[in-house]
């Protein structure tokens, strides 16, 4: 099939992000060939795990024409609450000294419920009171920070990071399953499960279709019998739940939590979504694309650090990639019109 010059240009423009990515990757490998190793990539995937879960949640909100600025602070709240409930019994600075050890599932469900409620609140503000999502989640962001700070900064220990996390929790972040040399970290498996569940929800359920309908054309969705309000509230609530899961994994990974845990995560999440093809005007996005977006970011960050590039260069590269991704997104949008 012969392609015209313009067709080739079109395809190149759409895949520009991948081309840039490949170029950067090749550059990094040339500078430091050791980058290209199984262990290395396994570490990259593991590090991406929590970010993938966060980006998928943020992506849902973007798909329904929203934006969630409260991501980072919601993770912070979930992290401090979760951490306070899973500290090792023998730890000297326990927040709840008398608290008996519970199966991990209980603190997890507790924070999932909390974040679901706050997410639903944001969703209600947007869907019923027509508060622009930017403002609604901005307000929620501040409220969440206040609440997590109050929870965190208390007697008798004041503003000390909540540490001494029980090994059964930290093992999730460090442990892996497998045979001999070929081990897959728990983090990757958990992220994989979340990805699959998300994919099923986005593509094979009524709710998923409604999500894309509301995001693509809310008026048409309403006329077609979709409960636009319910769909939006559920999206924000579900996103909250997913942030809570990511927060628990972060606590496992970092080994402690404070009221600043997760600060700024929303920026990376939205950036990864945009790179992964989620449209900022709503109605378009895919699980696969978001995963690739996160991976591109992580590889760049990790790779640049690996070859010893000044940490601040990562900001420049990140910023440039985001701009490039949005420019491509805008082109798609204007072409459609």
């Amino acid at each position: 099939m012969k392609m015209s010059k313009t067709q080739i240009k079109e395809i190149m423009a759409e895949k520009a992000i991948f081309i840039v990515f490949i170029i950067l990757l090749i550059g990094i490998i040339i500078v430091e060939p050791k980058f290209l190793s199984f262990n290395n990539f396994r570490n990259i995937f593991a590090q991406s795990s929590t970010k993938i879960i966060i980006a998928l949640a943020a992506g849902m909100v973007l798909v329904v024409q929203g934006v969630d600025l409260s991501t980072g602070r919601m993770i912070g709240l979930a992290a401090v609450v979760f951490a306070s409930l899973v500290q090792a019994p023998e730890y000297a600075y326990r927040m709840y000294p008398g608290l008996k050890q519970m199966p991990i599932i209980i603190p997890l469900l507790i924070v999932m419920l909390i974040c679901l409620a706050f997410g639903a609140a944001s969703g209600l503000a947007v869907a019923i009171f027509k508060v622009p999502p930017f403002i609604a989640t901005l307000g929620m962001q501040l409220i969440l920070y206040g609440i997590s700070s109050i929870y965190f900064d208390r007697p008798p220990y004041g503003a000390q990071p909540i540490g001494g996390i029980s090994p059964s929790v930290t093992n999730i972040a460090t442990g892996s399953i497998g045979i001999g040399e070929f081990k897959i970290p728990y983090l990757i498996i958990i992220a994989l499960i979340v990805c699959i569940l998300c994919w099923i929800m986005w593509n094979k359920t009524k709710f998923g279709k409604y999500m894309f309908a509301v995001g693509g054309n809310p008026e048409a969705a309403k006329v077609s019998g979709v409960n636009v309000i319910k769909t939006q509230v559920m999206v924000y609530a579900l996103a909250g739940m997913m942030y809570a899961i990511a927060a628990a994994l972060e606590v496992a990974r970092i080994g402690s939590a404070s009221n600043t845990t997760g600060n700024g995560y929303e920026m990376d999440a939205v950036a990864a979504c945009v790179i992964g093809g989620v449209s900022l005007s709503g109605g378009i996005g895919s699980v696969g694309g978001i995963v690739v977006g996160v991976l591109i970011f992580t590889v760049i960050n990790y790779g640049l650090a690996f070859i010893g590039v000044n940490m601040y260069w990562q900001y420049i590269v990140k910023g440039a990639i985001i701009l490039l991704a949005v420019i491509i997104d805008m082109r798609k949008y204007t072409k459609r019109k």
Partner: protein
Amino acid sequence: METNYILEMRHISKSFPGVKALDDVTLCVRPGTVHSLMGENGAGKSTLMNCLFGIYSKDSGEIILDGEKVNFHSPSEALNNRVSMVHQELNQVPNQTVMENLWLGRFPLKYKLIDEKRIYEKTKEIFDDLEIDIDPKMKVGSLKVSQKQMIEIAKAVSYDSKIIVMDEPTSSLTEREVEHIFQIINKLVNKGSSIIYISHKMEEILRISNDVTVMRDGKWISTNPARELTTDNIIQKMVGRELKDRYPKRNAKVGKVMLEVKNLSSAAPCFKNVSFELHSGEIIGIAGLVGAKRTEILEILFGLRKKGEGEIIVNGKKVENRNPREAMANGFAMLTEERRLDGIFAGQSVRFNTTIANMKKYEKHGLLKESSMRNDSNKMISTMKIKTPSEKNKIENLSGGNQQKVILGRWLLTDPEILLLDEPTRGIDVGAKFEIYQLINELAVQGKGVIVVSSEMPELFGIADRIVVMSSGRQAATLQTKEVGQVEVMEAAARYI
């Protein structure tokens, strides 16, 4: 060639994809006269004026202004050549003041800065001359619609134009304000300007015009001095087309009443006291001019707009239809007027667009049955004769007519009892229209009830059993199609204007 015209538009043609909007139209306007331009919705009046004013570029023909050939490429070019237009859709900036709106784009400057004092004075001057009592410093957004319309007219006048086109200038004005406009028009005409006046209001036309041109289906029909015409002649010229075999044969077997609409009114002041009965197997048309509030009736029946007083009774049972979901549960389906606005999901496939209203039926144990969705989409593609390589194709790649068919297919899948169709054949070619009429007929034969809002009279006469005529939010008539002609419908449509 007679050259005693201020404006000659000769043999103007203009096509858009799939539609010949203007077909060899000639309009000649004498200086110092009011020349009215009449025709139904879609006759081509606005298109012709847009060609004059530089908004569209004509495909062929010539425009001669005051003896010179002209071809405006933009409204500002037209304005600078002393042709101005008062649009139907007000183009004003609500947050700015009256005087700023008036001089937008041509502010008098003093040392390169906007000369506020002069703007105020010049505006005051114009207003005083036209006896308009509005404070130039008020924000436009805070004015009543009628005042906004006055300003729009003042703006056009301020350009000291030779030709002023007024497109439905009195649609929101009271009788007294209309008188005021007529005084202004007389003043302008005495000064030597000419007015091209577009309106549906017959009495006004006959009062104010010197000449009347009638257009129909993009063609010029006639130009006569106003004194030689009556309302009846004009209506006949506007409407008199033959009903060719553009409509499938209908053998209406009308059954019992399935829908009773009793004294239906909107919650907001919009329309009131609409009553009719829809029988199984029947097709009811709703006719009326733009602004008659026809779409609004359908919107209330479907739960898209708040109902006021009155009742909706389906098969003997009173229903509320507070939102589309409830309406759908009660057996309703609605094809909206503007598919681009609230019909299609542009970034999605034909399958998505076809099945989205029917999702509940595809759910099994929480997941969607892909095979059912695929089968239903393909079924609709063949039933509606939609031209698309596959159901996976993005809907934005389809032509407008085929997109419309997809939306109609979407509703047929929900197996409704009562179909509300708002301009179902808008933007569709003649062949596809016939297919849609056949489908509507089929639905009626199956015992469903159909209500069609349409601005095309032949269409209503071709497919409807009865026609409800709306006029300015009031029900003017309910007519049996077989017993009346288009003239009766036009009369009723103009009754409460």
